[in-house]
């Protein structure tokens, strides 16, 4: 056995009730290697990470750490062995400082000497080009900076294997570049990195080796820099699904939606408030809203859907003011919404697909004098299932029993069949399999061609560039100017996502 082999997994099996999340996975990570773990949502990446980090115990299989067989019973044990993990959702206390957050995860004798700890945080952050002041409160940090706190926390604990779960999904392109520089330097010094992602281009530019998972098994190993993104995508999704949509050019018509100087004050001290958001949307066009998570995307969606009432500004759809209407009234005027959370907002998990149709489509003649017309509800539901290729046993399946992609197709279909004038979709393909994502993109383009105006809120820049006529970015609740996609380079968009734009200019551009 090579002494440089840091981590080896043999035949890892982990079964959950009703699902074999890991089904005999082998993995080898060498010292100083950046190893990508690729796969669609639900392929078993997160479960495998939790096995390595000791969050769950595998049902079968063996794990070797620096050549010795080990059993990791808890994250604390994993940390003491030198395994550090940065989760997608950070585990930081917003009301504490950087140093306090880091001290919490250290053994008491190390945490006590705060001056020395500050010193160490500065040393580590300077050394790896991650500027960070240990005295700052986490609530004042950007998402990218919070991620640095997590990474520095691992490095201070002298981790020799760093696991990063989709670290770039919360970063601007510039922040991604700086993270990658840090990771390359770490690898050069011998630290192993396990990089979980589904963004193929990133993996190709950063990682030495990649292991691709599909449905709980290893579907292939490769050197990402030597194969094309299409080849890797094939390993991820299998042979029988289309990988991309062909999007025809749009022909925008007259102004459909006009939003002027929208203001909304968040009640949550750590929430995002909307500030002077203005945009105009024409029929037959898709406008993309980029931005790092938590910069007001959900707030904007709720302001448009009517789930929250704005404090100021106007929302006008075809000349009629919407800002005082509730969600059901707006729906009656042709507004359709696809929220970010499919289960527990877009659909009720334990209800059937037919009942979930009734959730937003009751205005389509499904209710008469307060009574539900069940035959019509079932018909509507079957129509959605048929037209949008939703894979399920029928309209009596519960929403929670569908895969993410299939449920999302159902929700998009439910909204699309109501012939909306305006569709606002948030992260419609997040966590969705490639085949469903293609179907969803096609549905959006078709709606656009039928004359609907579409707002597409997404963190997936590829998706935005592929589908949208114009793109802008939200940062801290303010909206950048909207630029035609063809004229907007990714550097510029990255700066907008980081908040480098002039609000006055944004208003001007939108007016």
């Amino acid at each position, binding site marked *: 056995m090579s002494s440089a082999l840091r981590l080896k997994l043999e035949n890892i099996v982990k079964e959950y009730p009703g699902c074999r999340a890991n089904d005999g996975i082998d993995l080898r990570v060498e010292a100083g290697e950046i190893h990508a773990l690729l796969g669609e949502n639900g392929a078993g990446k997160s479960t495998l990470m939790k096995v390595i980090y000791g969050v769950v115990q595998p049902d079968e299989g063996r794990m070797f750490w620096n050549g010795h067989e080990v059993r990791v019973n808890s994250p604390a044990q994993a940390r003491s062995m030198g395994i550090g993990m940065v989760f997608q959702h950070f585990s930081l206390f917003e009301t504490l400082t950087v140093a306090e957050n880091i001290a919490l995860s250290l053994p008491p004798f190390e945490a006590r000497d705060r001056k020395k700890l500050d010193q160490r945080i500065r040393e580590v952050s300077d050394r790896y080009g991650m500027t960070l002041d240990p005295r700052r409160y986490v609530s004042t940090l950007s998402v990218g900076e919070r991620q640095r706190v997590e990474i520095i926390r691992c490095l201070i604990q002298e981790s020799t294997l760093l696991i990063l779960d989709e670290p770039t999904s919360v970063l601007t392109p510039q922040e991604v570049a700086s993270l990658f520089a840090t990771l390359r330097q770490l690898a050069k010094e011998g630290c192993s990195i396990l990089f979980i992602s589904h963004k193929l281009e990133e993996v190709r530019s950063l990682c030495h080796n990649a292991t691709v998972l599909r449905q709980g098994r290893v579907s292939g190993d490769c050197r990402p820099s030597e194969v094309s993104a299409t080849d890797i995508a094939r390993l991820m999704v299998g042979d029988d699904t289309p990988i991309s949509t062909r999007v025809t050019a749009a022909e925008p018509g007259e102004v459909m939606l006009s939003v002027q100087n929208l203001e909304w004050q968040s009640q949550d001290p750590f929430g995002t408030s909307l500030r002077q958001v203005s945009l105009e949307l024409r029929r037959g066009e898709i406008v993309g809203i980029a931005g790092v998570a938590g910069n007001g995307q959900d707030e904007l969606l709720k302001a448009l859907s009517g789930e929250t009432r704005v404090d100021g500004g106007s929302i006008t759809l075809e000349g009629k003011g919407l800002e005082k209407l*509730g969600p059901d009234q707006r729906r009656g005027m042709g507004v359709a919404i696809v929220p970010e959370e499919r289960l527990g907002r877009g659909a*009720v998990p334990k209800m059937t697909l037919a009942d979930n149709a009734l959730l*937003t489509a009751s205005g389509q003649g499904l209710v008469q004098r307060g009574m*539900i017309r069940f035959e019509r509800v079932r018909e509507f539901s079957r129509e959605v299932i048929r037209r949008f290729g939703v894979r399920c046993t029928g309209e009596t399946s519960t929403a929670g029993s569908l895969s993410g992609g299939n449920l999302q197709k159902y929700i998009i279909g439910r909204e699309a069949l109501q012939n909306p004038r305006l569709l606002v979709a948030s992260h419609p393909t997040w966590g969705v399999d490639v085949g469903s994502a293609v179907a969803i993109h096609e549905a959006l383009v078709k709606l656009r061609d039928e004359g609907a105006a579409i707002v597409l809120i997404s963190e997936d820049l590829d998706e935005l560039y592929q589908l949208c006529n114009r793109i802008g970015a939200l940062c801290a609740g303010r909206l950048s100017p909207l630029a035609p996609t063809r004229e907007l380079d990714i550097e510029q968009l990255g700066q907008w996502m980081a908040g480098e734009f002039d609000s006055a200019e944004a208003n001007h551009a939108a007016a």
Partner: protein
Amino acid sequence: MLLLERRPVDSSLMRWASPLLALVLTVITGFILFLAMGKDPVEGLRFFFITPISDLMGLAELGLKMAPLLLCAAGLTVCYRAKIWNIGAEGHFLMGALGASIVAVQLVDVDSVWVLPVVLVAGTLAGMAWAALAAGLKTHLNCNEILTTIMLNYIALNLLLYTVHGPLKDPYGFGFPQSVMFGDSALLPDLIPGTRLHLGLAFGLLAAVAVWVMFARSFIGFQLNVVGQDHRAAAFAGFGARRLTWFAFLVGGATAGLAGASEVTGPIGQLVPQVSPGYGYTAIIVVFLGRMHALGIVVASALLALTFIGGEILQIAMNMPKAVTGLFQGLLLFYLLTCDAFIHYRIRLKRPAHPSTHSTATGEA
């Protein structure tokens, strides 16, 4: 080692088996309790469960006790489906009895077919008004309805006691705290001649049918279900939580208020302090035992009505304390909640983890 693990899919068998299992466990525990107290358990259980329903008179008495339970439970079902935990049926009930009595006492000498409807409507409105207090506190001040409704129950009880000891006390009642007997035209007609069973049971059954229609067919029932299962989805769909909260509370107040009115115009015929032996609280058990389903609450209200009558018989026949009714009701709810855990969870036997997992792994390697 025993392991309680989440079922991948909720068990629908267990959803309906759980009340039966709870009943069996209650009977077994009752058996043991009788033994421990030195009473004959078979005799005791027979007095409690069989004797009350062995003749027409007994069945009529059962229907009599069922009526208020079923009415209260029907209204509470509407609330609980929307996960509005209204514990205030007792208060609505008492206010309904009080409101109906005040009107009935005013009309004691009037002889008209309109007296009874007016009295019943007065009780219903009084129950709704009491429920409206809790609804307003919840929707406008965000007060927890469990706390406010419990507190309002005590206020209602004291209001009733004040009235029956004061303004409404029968001046010729030898100082007893009770109102005058209502006029004949304010009394509910009997359903079966010669028994005390009155029209109140028909109200209860109608309410159960209404609940069935509401949740099986109507859009507002669907909206209440969505609010209960997933309030974020309800907000997304635009089902106004405030409007539905008010609706559920008012329905709960109306049925419990009508139950109170039916009780004073039915078997009692006047306002007395002990107008309710806790119907409003027992109705909570009825709703859970009946799975928040119309048919279920009809069966469950019959069973709980039995505990009231059975308890009385045990007091007389076996010299048991009054607490025996509450004891059996409490046991039933306790076992029901326990058994309900197995709708979502199952028990799995887990072998000692370390050695066995290890050996399987090496065995396959």
